[in-house]
């Protein structure tokens, strides 16, 4: 196996580890830090793919990832939690060891799903498709088991990271126009979520999204 491919596998494994770390994390600040690390790992793996396959447009998407997901969005989220003054622990619906066991089940499912696909592919990154799929599913799980709005948004953003990684590992990345569009969407999405947070808190005095069920009765 060439060395570049081994490095990509290592980074993919690291991504999976970060996804699990986010799933088991109780503090909002650490969650944001982990999200930034996930972006950094993703950018590194994109650079290695770009270097080993000679695809210059991937350098742009790596730069975009660093700017957006390692610097800008974590900074916005930091500002948000400072303004909202929330630093307390994140509540989870089910306890953390159980969440992690469910996570292992999801990883097995994703790997089983991806193995037949990667056997027909011949890209340098083919074996990482399963990991990309697994991190998408784990982010989904995080959105499901978290009760507060901010961890759910971080779950959403890290799901986008997973999709990005899947795109790189399956097809060496999407065309630059598409990537720029997605990047803009994510950025705008973060802003809109930020505005939503303020509105939710103004309405319910809390960011617990269980309160939103009351809206049905009006």
């Amino acid at each position: 196996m060439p060395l570049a491919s081994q490095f990509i596998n290592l980074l993919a494994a690291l991504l999976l580890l970060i996804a699990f770390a986010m799933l088991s994390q109780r503090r909002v600040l650490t969650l944001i830090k982990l999200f930034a690390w996930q972006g950094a790992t993703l950018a590194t793996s994109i650079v290695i793919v770009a270097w080993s396959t000679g695809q210059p447009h991937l350098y742009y998407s790596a730069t975009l990832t660093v700017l957006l997901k390692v610097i800008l969005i974590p900074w916005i989220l930091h500002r948000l939690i400072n303004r909202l003054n929330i630093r307390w622990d994140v509540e989870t619906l089910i306890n953390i060891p159980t969440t992690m066991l469910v996570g292992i089940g999801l990883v097995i499912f994703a790997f089983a799903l991806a193995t037949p696909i990667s056997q027909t592919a011949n890209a340098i990154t083919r074996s990482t498709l399963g990991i990309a799929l697994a991190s998408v599913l784990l982010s989904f799980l995080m959105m499901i088991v978290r009760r507060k709005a901010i961890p759910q948004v971080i779950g959403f953003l890290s799901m986008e990271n997973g999709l990005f990684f899947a795109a790189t590992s399956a097809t060496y990345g999407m065309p630059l126009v598409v990537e720029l569009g997605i990047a803009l969407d994510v950025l705008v999405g973060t802003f809109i979520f930020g505005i939503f947070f303020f509105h939710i808190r103004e309405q319910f005095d809390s960011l617990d999204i269980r309160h939103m069920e009351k809206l049905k009765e009006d």
Partner: protein
Amino acid sequence: MNLSAGIAFQILQSVFVVLAAPLLMGWINQCRAWLQNRSAPSLLLPYYTLIKLFHKDAVIARNASPLFRITPYVLFGCMWLAAGIIPVLATDLPFAPAADIIALVAVFALARVFSALAAMDIGTAFGGLGARREMLIGFLAEPAMLMALFTAAFICGSTQLTTIVDTLAHRQFAIYPGLAFAAVAFLMVLLAENARIPIDNPTTHLELTMVHEAMILEYSARHLALIEWAVAIKLFAYMTLGLALFVPWGIASAGDWNELPLALAALTAKLALAGAGLALIETVFAKLRLFLAPEFLSTAFLLGVLGMLTHFLVQA
């Protein structure tokens, strides 16, 4: 390999482990004292403690059953057996085919069951409390340990420790993400199984927080000495097992006397580093609440499983 040289190697290794284990303990204590800005005790202090304890008269509770008396010998025997199976200095020892990694975990489990039974034998409150806690930790640590070992076993296609270590030591350079996960899982299990700091504090004097120490409160003199010695051998065995699996370079093959000095030097250097690392971990981290131990060990299990799954996916 001729048989007599192999047997000589086997005896040499077994005796070496038993004699060197307290030295490793002394080294860890010394490192920890330095890191905590205390003046360090002598490197040989564990030996002096053992000698002191062997010269004392044993006191045994009136209602103690024979189980209580034989447990220290069983513990010492189990750990010595484990030390003979693990390739510490050389692979392919004549004794190695006797047990693979699963049997090795079973040997450790046997020792745990005996120490828990002996702790409950006298009927003191602290003994029963310690035994229950020990079994809780043990039953969570065992699957994590097996998963970490299975990752290495899958990479090498065998559960024989000798074959695994041989394959890993003489392979071409390659990055195994699975093995890295397994190494972290193994480290966490090592800390939990040897009653080190995130799970249990080996130097505690507070009975309510004790796990391992609470089980041996009733022992004295030669029995206590044997148990302390067995604990030292257990830590030594776990550390050399980790070193053999995850940094196996420099290990000799049995019967080859020329490789022995190099293997011995490599082992000493690796153990010195690992001991300092363990002392660092014990200084940096605080002891976890007992109810957080399942979370710690389920993380170890998770890492072990992830290691195995990643190995399958990357090799496919």
